[in-house]
């Protein structure tokens, strides 16, 4: 299986051309066909995992929560009426699971930072950001990443989710509104507030 380029943001619209095939897979999975469900999992695993990871900043937690979300979705598949796309539906399950988990974990403030992948060091935007704009010129990518994660964890869950879905994963406001079950104005205002907060937390690194 080929893995997606991490620098390219995931788009819900990527799946629209074969929506018919997706519906057929959902129908088969509803009848208990695990092979069909396996295909659905493979379609969305990267995006679901990435969203959860950007919310938790922890690989193990993201792995467990993503698996739990897909298992819960399979168990609840009978109740999926098709009012929204399967993509939105599974996203909602994953997001709700993650928010519940974070509420329980809030007191711990636990964070595990995974290694950056090789491509990050070659990203011109990031190299410029680290070497030219930061006051501490010796601050490396890992330090910036660490500070970013710390700043993200200081946001409330809805604000963090909007940033993760829009600025990191590249989803449109409309898609985020559907996933979060709120209107687009709310998404925009949350995004603006979250960016302001992050800007404040990372002032020393972004000037």
């Amino acid at each position, binding site marked *: *299986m080929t*893995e997606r380029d*991490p*620098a*390219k*943001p995931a788009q819900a619209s990527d799946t629209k051309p074969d929506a018919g095939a997706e519906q057929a897979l959902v129908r088969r999975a509803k009848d208990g066909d*695990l092979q069909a*469900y*396996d295909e659905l*999992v*493979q379609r969305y*695993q*990267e995006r679901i*995992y990435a969203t959860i*990871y*950007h919310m938790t900043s922890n*690989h193990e937690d*993201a*792995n467990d929560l*993503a*698996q739990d979300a*897909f*298992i819960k979705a*399979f*168990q609840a598949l009978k109740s999926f009426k098709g009012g929204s796309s399967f993509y939105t539906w599974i996203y909602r399950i994953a997001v709700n699971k993650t928010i519940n988990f974070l509420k329980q974990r809030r007191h711990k403030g636990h964070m595990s930072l*995974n290694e*950056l*992948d090789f*491509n*990050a060091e070659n*990203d011109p*935007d*990031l190299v410029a*950001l680290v070497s030219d*704009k930061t006051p501490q010129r010796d601050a490396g*990518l890992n330090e*910036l*990443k660490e500070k*970013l*994660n710390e700043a*993200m964890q200081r946001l409330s869950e809805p604000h963090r989710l909007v*940033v*993760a879905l829009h*600025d*990191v*994963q590249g989803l449109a406001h409309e898609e985020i509104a559907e996933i979060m079950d709120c209107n687009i104005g709310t998404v925009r205002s949350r995004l*603006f507030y979250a*960016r302001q907060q*992050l*800007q404040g937390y*990372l002032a020393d*690194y*972004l000037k």
Partner: protein
Amino acid sequence: MQNQEDNFDALRRALKLKRHEQPPPGFYNSFSRQVISRIRENDVHDRRHVMDAAAWEAPWISRLMQYFQTRPAYAGVIGAAACVLLLGGVVYSERPSAPVVAEGLRLGDSQGIAGVSPLANSAESPATGSSISPVGALPEGTTLFDKMRPRQTVPVFSTTNLLNQK
């Protein structure tokens, strides 16, 4: 709005860094397999839960199962005995006549069976009709079960019989 986007330009470029945070190589190759295997495990667990619930409701079932699990020969003998009994019962019920019972019943035809009042043969009790007549009075060649059936169909103390009698 565009101005706002420009204000956050540095932040947005920094957030791009998070796109490079990836799980270990090959992680996605096994992810769906793990999900599917956990779904299967849950399914098996649910079935076990049903068995456990049954054992909780009737503990003797689980004790019996454990006993037979350690002694499969006993389970085989008991199973074979049950089969023989079942087959014997079927064969016996399908036989044209049961010799011992039939002999006694034939005697009852003319002389009555020992210990049974020959009331049925008496003309003094016509109202009772066939409801108390001995089964030996039925035609020969029918099985015991066939002979029993007519008794069940005839009303013994129906009000119509009593009215007719009057």
